[in-house]
C-alpha cells in the first residue's frame, strides 16, 4: 500500500478487525488442541487454560493410538480424499476445457446441467446412492466413497475452472495446434499450468468437505476396514460416557493432514482468489 492511501488510524482499525476475526476463527481449534493435552478433570475444570505441568496428560493420544486402528483410519481418509481430489480436478478440468474451448450444440445447456449440482445437495440422493452401491456391490469399499465425492465435487470444479479457462489466450492454444500438438497436449501442457491457481482454489474447496464428511462414510462404508478418521473419532463418543481426551486427541490429529495440504495449495489459492480482481 502506498503511503498516500494509508493512515495510522485506518491501519490500526483494519488490523483490529482482522485480529478479532482471526481470534474468533481460531478459538475452537485452539480449545480442541490445548484440551487434547490435558487430563480429563482439567478439561472440565479449566477448559480454557493451557496445559500446566500438573494438568498435562497424553492419555488422549495414547488411547487413540492404542485403541482402534487409527493409522488405518488415517490412511483411509487420505486415500479417499486424495483420490477424489485427483478425479475431481482431472474430470472437472477436462469438462471445463471442452465447455470453454469448443463450440457445439447445447454447450450452454451442458454447462448449466453440470453446474446444477452446486444447487442441489448430493445428500438428498443418499437412499438412491445406497441402493446403487448395494446393487453394484460397492458397500463398505473406499471406491464407493471416492465415486460419491467425485460426483459431489465436480459441479463446482467445472463451474470455476471453465470461467478461468475462458481467460486462457486462444492464440496460445491455436499456436499449439499449428505446431501440431494434440488437443490432449494442449490441455495438459499449455492450459493446465496456466490455470494452476484456479486448480488450487478448487482443490481446497473440494478437499475440506471430503475430509470432514461423516455422512457418507457412516452410510456407505462403516466397516472397520474402511472407516475414515471422522468416523473413527465417533468411537469415543458414547451414549452415556464420552472419552473426551480421546475425541479431542483424534480431532487434533485429524486437523494435521488437511492443514498440510492447505499450506501446499494456499500460495496458489491466494493468487487464484485475487487474479480476477486485480488485472
Amino acid at each position, binding site marked *: 500500500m502506498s503511503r498516500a492511501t494509508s493512515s495510522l488510524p485506518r491501519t490500526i482499525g483494519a488490523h483490529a478487525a482482522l485480529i478479532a476475526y482471526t481470534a474468533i476463527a481460531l478459538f475452537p481449534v485452539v480449545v480442541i488442541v490445548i484440551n487434547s493435552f490435558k487430563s480429563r478433570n482439567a478439561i472440565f475444570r479449566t477448559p480454557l487454560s493451557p496445559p500446566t505441568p500438573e494438568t498435562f496428560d497424553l492419555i488422549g493420544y495414547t488411547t487413540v493410538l492404542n485403541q482402534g486402528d487409527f493409522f488405518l483410519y488415517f490412511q483411509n481418509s487420505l486415500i479417499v480424499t486424495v483420490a477424489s481430489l485427483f478425479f475431481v480436478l482431472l474430470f472437472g478440468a477436462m469438462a471445463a476445457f471442452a465447455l470453454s474451448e469448443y463450440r457445439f450444440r447445447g454447450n450452454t445447456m451442458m454447462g448449466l446441467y453440470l453446474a446444477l449440482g452446486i444447487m442441489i445437495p448430493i445428500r438428498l440422493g443418499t437412499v438412491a446412492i445406497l441402493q446403487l452401491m448395494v446393487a453394484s456391490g460397492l458397500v463398505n469399499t473406499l471406491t464407493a466413497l471416492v465415486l460419491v465425492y467425485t460426483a459431489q465435487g465436480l459441479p463446482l470444479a467445472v463451474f470455476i475452472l471453465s470461467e478461468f479457462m475462458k481467460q486462457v489466450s486462444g492464440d*496460445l492454444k*491455436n499456436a499449439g495446434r*499449428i*505446431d*501440431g*500438438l494434440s488437443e490432449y497436449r494442449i490441455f495438459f501442457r499449455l492450459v493446465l*499450468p496456466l490455470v494452476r491457481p484456479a486448480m488450487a482454489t478448487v482443490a481446497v474447496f473440494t478437499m475440506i468437505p471430503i475430509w470432514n464428511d461423516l455422512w457418507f462414510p457412516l452410510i456407505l462404508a462403516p466397516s472397520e476396514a474402511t472407516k475414515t478418521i471422522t468416523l473413527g473419532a465417533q468411537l469415543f463418543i458414547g451414549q452415556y460416557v464420552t472419552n473426551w481426551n480421546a475425541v479431542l486427541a483424534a480431532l487434533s490429529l485429524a486437523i494435521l493432514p488437511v492443514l498440510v495440504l492447505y499450506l501446499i495449495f494456499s500460495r496458489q489459492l491466494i493468487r487464484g482468489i485475487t487474479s480476477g480482481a486485480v488485472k
Partner: protein
Amino acid sequence: MGSLTIDNVKKSFGKVDVLKGIDLEVKDGEFVVFVGPSGCGKSTLLRIVAGLEDTTSGRVMIDGADVTVTPPANRGIAMVFQTYALYPHLTVRANMSLGLKQIGTPAQEIEKRVAAASAMLSLEPYLERRPAELSGGQRQRVAIGRAVVREPKLFLFDEPLSNLDAALRVNTRLEIAQLHRRLKATMIYVTHDQVEAMTLADKIVVLNAGRIEQVGAPMDLYNKPANEFVAGFIGSPKMNFIDAAKLGEAQAKTVGVRPEHLTVDTASGAWKGTVVHAEHLGADTNLYVDTEMAGLLTVRIFGVYDAEPGSTLYVTPDPARTYRFDADGRRLA
C-alpha cells in the same frame, strides 16, 4: 513455393454471416495484406486459411492441393499472433523448435534452422530465456522466429504489431519487410492499420462486412479506389466526402477529395470557408476548414502553414484528383 486459392468461402456463426463469399488468388512469393475495420471478417478469413476455423462452404487450396479439411499442422503454414502466443514454460530455443520436433525433424536440422533464424532476428543472446524474461519486441521476434524455422509455404500474420508501442512497431514492420525480401516466401498479413497495409503489401485486400471491396497494389487503391469505402479507408487523414447535390453535380451522389489534393488561398478559390482548427505536425499541417458550400473539410498542407482559427480561407480541389461516386458508392469513371 506457396500459392493460395480461396474459392467462394463463406462462414457463418449461427445466424451471423461473417464471410459472404470470398474469392482470392495469392501468387507464390506475394506479400498480401488483409485490411478492413474491426468486425469485417479479416481475422476469420486468416483463421480459415490457417485451419483454425472451418468454412461453412467453399474451398481453400494451398499449392493447388485442397486443404479445406486438413488440420492446421499439416497445411505447411506458420502463424504469428497478435498476443505472441509463446509457450510460457519453454525457453526461446524450445519455443522455436517445438513445431519441428512434433513432425520428427532430426535434432541437427532443428539446431541449424534455429541458429539461422535467431541470427536473422538477432535473438542469439536470448535463446535460453523464457518468454516472461523478454520485452514485447523480443517476444514478437521470437514468435516470428518460431514461424521462420518451420520454413512454411505460407506465413500468416494476425495483427502482429498491435501490441507493440509506436517506435517498436515501425522497427518490427521494417524487419518483417526485410524478412519477406530475404525469404521470398508467401506472406499473408492481417491488420486494421492502413499504414501497415500500404507500407508492407504487394497486394492489399480491402474487406468490409464480410466481402472483398477491392484487391490491388497499394498505389492502385490510393489512385483508383473502386468505391467510396476503399477511398475512405485508404489514406490518412481520411478523404473528404461532399454531397454532390451541394456542388450542383447531377450525375454523382458523392464527391471525394483527399486532404492532400486540396489547396488553400487567402484571397480566392472555389470554396470559401472558416478555419476551425489547425494541427501542426512539422512536416505537414492539417487544417479543418468549415466551408459554406462543401461543409467541413480536412486540408493537408505540406510544410508549415500558419492559419489562425476563425480566419477566412478559400479551398480549391485538384480537378484531376477528384473522385465521383454513385448512389451505390461505386466510383464513376
